């Protein structure tokens, strides 16, 4: 097995995913556990060394006065008097099915049915501190932690049951939540062992967990936990939370980003019965007993904003090439995802038969989670409770504590299973706004962002510019690789190509828009640039792109997914295609001006590695006629078929993995072909689904997935990496079909030739 500790050391937390370490953390002692959970047995899992380090240096303050408890606690499991098992984790469910993954892992280790395991997630008063649900970390870190707890619990419970039954512990095993001795003459239920107990046990560090080859419940396609409550409409998202006496809130937004308030007149709004108006610096909001009145009140506020001149899409890439003046956004030149240069670029280029320099760009895109940001805030005396859909409940707790100058133990953040995040819900702005309104109104307040607010006032996947300079020999050997990523990030920037001379850097920029995490983050941009460029090199030396990759990749896991995808796809060597050129606005191909034929098809391949997952994607595209409203010379790109092979170690739930990969491919279609945030002078110009097109049913290609199960390798997360291969595979396929090399994401926002 690959040690997960080493894996954690290898993986750098992406700069955009981690802001500041928390400066205070709640602590528990044994009495707190007994008080919180009542009778039964609590098993506590100490945090691993590496995770403890990630959470901040020095004394964390966790653990409190009771020195018998570990300083950093990763998770705990409670077994109540009825034998029901509840595991507590600070991770949250945002559609990635972590609730199911963790539930089945605990059930697997404890030898109890899935139905008797419950998970309490993302509640800062009940669950251990957690940095957040991002970076595909839940499976590689939380699964082993909860498994350790469950394995230790199993052994301790067996010892207790053995004592009760007066048999040797070695004579007992747990089958389906029952203790059985060798001839089943003596049995006990989990409930009978837990009954009347009042125990808090810290699990030993050296406990062994069940290896994937011996899994019985993990490794199977357990149905989504709570599926019934979702399909029946009963599940309560934050949007659906109600509290007694609850008011609704609305924020009056500035006219543009970075605008300052010149004047505000709230008299007319304040005169509406039931309305409370709150102004506090640039913050202007209202509360009312119903949503309609909040809208009326907000519209009645006369407000004047002054906005500085701001960058638009047109200047974006020039701006991003300039070094950052504000270091908060990144680690500076060479920092973060880059690495020390290897060999010599000069030598590498000198050894090359062909050289290539190209630039690739990506626009900002929006997460557009279908549940926009929402929060319900309630003050009870000096204690604040907020329900909100966030991937960082403890981060939001810190934001709230800082915003209101109160200790963090006076703030409770509860995250109901959330209407998706994709990295877009790391921040707590909606929670802070709701809490500010609730404080003023003296009643609980629900604040739900509109779609336009979610598109405008959240944050975006970073835009970026990537420059690549490379050299290759005529036999296809890569000799030099220089890669500069401006702003979009360091995720997935490292290469699995065996290139002796390389220089790979990330450069922080001043982003004109607020930017943050996103599913896979910069791995999509970096893979798009790299895998497009690799294809260009393969074309340059006339070698089939699959063969070209295999000649330069030694990594067995990456080769395995490449071959698996190619086999399933039925990959056949692609022809050398003469690049199309444009002259006087007319697209020329094959030596003469031409309209692209409608029936053309192309195939493309791409591969990659990120966050412990290996992916290879093959795609087939078709060139199709324009819609009736478009110029007749325009051509559309339709994705006909996608085959993706993915390997992330031992598979915990094949069906859910399949679902995540499919979802990643579909989401990737948007960023690859048409999604792009348009902005000018501090305003978002397309903050609606009618203007910001996301993939729909009609965009769906035929998708085939090859799951590569490696039971000898610890499971990595799978919610992100399957997204990275699609864009370059499509770009490469478009080139084969047309001779047009598209180096900007999105590739065809208005069609191929528009």
């Amino acid at each position: 097995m690959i040690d997960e500790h080493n894996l954690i050391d290898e993986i750098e937390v992406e700069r955009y995913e981690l802001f500041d370490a928390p400066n205070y953390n709640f602590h528990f002692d044994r009495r707190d556990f007994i008080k919180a959970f009542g009778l039964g047995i609590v098993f506590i899992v100490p945090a691993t060394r590496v995770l403890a380090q990630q959470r901040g240096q020095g004394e964390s303050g966790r653990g409190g006065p009771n020195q018998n408890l570990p300083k950093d606690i990763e998770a705990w499991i409670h077994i109540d008097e009825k034998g029901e098992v509840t595991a507590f984790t600070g991770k949250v469910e945002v559609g990635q099915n972590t609730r199911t993954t963790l539930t089945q892992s605990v059930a697997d280790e404890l030898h109890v049915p899935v139905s008797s395991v419950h998970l309490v997630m993302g509640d800062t008063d009940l669950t251990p501190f957690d940095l957040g649900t991002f970076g595909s970390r839940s499976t590689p870190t939380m699964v082993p932690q909860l498994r350790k707890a469950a394995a230790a619990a199993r052994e301790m419970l067996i010892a207790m049951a053995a004592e009760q039954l007066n048999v040797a512990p070695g004579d007992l095993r747990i089958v389906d939540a029952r203790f059985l001795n060798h001839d089943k003459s003596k049995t006990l239920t989990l409930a009978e062992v837990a009954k009347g107990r009042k125990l808090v046990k810290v699990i030993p560090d050296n406990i062994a967990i069940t290896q994937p080859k011996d899994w019985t419940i993990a490794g199977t396609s357990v149905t989504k936990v709570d599926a019934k409550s979702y399909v029946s409409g009963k599940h309560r998202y934050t949007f659906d939370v109600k509290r007694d006496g609850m008011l609704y809130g609305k924020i009056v937004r500035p006219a543009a980003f970075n605008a300052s308030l010149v004047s505000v007149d709230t008299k007319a709004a304040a005169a509406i019965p039931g309305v409370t108006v709150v102004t506090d610096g640039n913050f202007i909001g209202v509360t009312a007993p119903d949503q309609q009145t909040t809208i009326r009140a907000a519209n009645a506020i006369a407000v004047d904003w002054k906005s500085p001149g701001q960058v638009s899409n047109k200047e974006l890439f020039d701006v991003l090439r300039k070094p950052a003046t504000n270091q908060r956004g990144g680690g500076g030149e060479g920092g973060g995802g880059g690495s020390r240069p290897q060999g010599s670029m000069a030598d590498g280029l000198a050894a090359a038969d062909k050289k290539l320099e190209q630039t690739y760009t990506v626009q900002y895109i929006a997460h557009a989670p279908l549940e926009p940001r929402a929060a319900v805030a309630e003050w009870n005396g000096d204690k604040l409770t907020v329900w909100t859909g966030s991937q960082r409940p403890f981060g939001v707790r810190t934001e709230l504590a800082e915003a209101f100058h109160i200790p963090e133990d006076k703030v409770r953040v509860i995250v109901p299973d959330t209407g998706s995040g994709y990295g877009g819900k790391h921040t707590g702005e909606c929670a802070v706004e709701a809490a500010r309104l609730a404080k003023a109104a003296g009643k609980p307040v629900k604040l739900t962002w509109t779609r336009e607010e979610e598109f405008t006032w959240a944050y975006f996947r970073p835009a970026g510019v990537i420059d690549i300079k490379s050299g290759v020999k005529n036999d296809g050997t890569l000799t030099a690789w220089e890669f500069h990523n401006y702003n979009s990030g360091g995720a997935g920037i490292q290469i699995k190509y065996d290139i002796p001379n390389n220089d790979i850097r990330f450069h922080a920029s001043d982003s004109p828009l607020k930017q943050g995490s996103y599913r896979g983050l910069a791995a999509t941009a970096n893979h798009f640039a790299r895998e497009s460029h690799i294809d260009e090199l393969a074309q340059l030396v006339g070698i089939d792109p699959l063969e070209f990759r295999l000649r330069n990749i030694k990594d067995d896991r990456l080769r395995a997914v490449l071959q698996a995808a190619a086999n399933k796809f039925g990959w056949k060597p692609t022809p050398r295609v003469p690049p199309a050129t444009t002259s006087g606005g007319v697209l020329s191909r094959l030596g003469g001006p031409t309209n692209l034929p409608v029936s053309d098809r192309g195939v493309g391949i791409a591969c990659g590695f990120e966050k412990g997952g290996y992916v290879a994607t093959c795609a087939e595209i078709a060139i199709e006629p324009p819609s009736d409203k478009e110029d007749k010379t325009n051509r559309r790109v339709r994705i006909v078929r996608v085959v993706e092979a993915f390997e992330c170690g031992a598979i915990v739930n094949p069906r859910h993995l399949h679902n995540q990969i499919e979802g990643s491919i579909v989401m990737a279609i948007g960023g690859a072909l048409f999604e792009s945030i348009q902005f000018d002078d501090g305003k978002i110009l397309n903050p609606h689904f009618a203007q910001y097109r996301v993939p729909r049913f009609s965009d769906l290609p035929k998708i085939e997935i090859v799951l590569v199960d490696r039971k000898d390798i610890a499971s990595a997360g799978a919610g992100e990496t399957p997204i990275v291969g699609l864009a370059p595979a499509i770009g490469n396929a478009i080139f084969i079909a047309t001779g047009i090399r598209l180096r900007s994401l999105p590739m065809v926002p208005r069609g191929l030739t528009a």
Partner: protein
Amino acid sequence: MAKVTSLNVNGRKMTVDIDSSVSLLSVLRNDLDLTGSKYGCGEGQCGACTVLIDGVATRSCITQVGRVGGKQITTIEALEKDGKLHPLQEAFIAADAMQCAYCTSGMIMSASALLAKNAKPSRAEIITGMNGNICRCGTYERIVQAIQIASGQAKEVA
């Protein structure tokens, strides 16, 4: 302002006191506590708020409550009867046709209207019929399969 004083929701007459210009979605969610219908965009673009009005799939977020006073309104909450899920709901579970599931209510309501008009829709008809509903998690293929299962055209799903 004109008022709406009663609504027929899920076969029951509900007494309300609402301005007729308010959105049906807001009334369902905030006044009747039927929160299964979701707000996704407020512009009729995503379908998360889909309900049936006299059997026709309708975007409740852009439907003024004053227009549906005398009509039969059916929401996701009506599909499960006596603890038994509707075949579409069962099919969505069988096909694992959800991730975050925020779109699921709207998907199921749109699908139920589609199947009411066309008991055995082809794949192309499903795609056309469902194209107004967004699943940002990208579970479209599974939703197509769920509709095929519910209409007796498919059984197993990978």
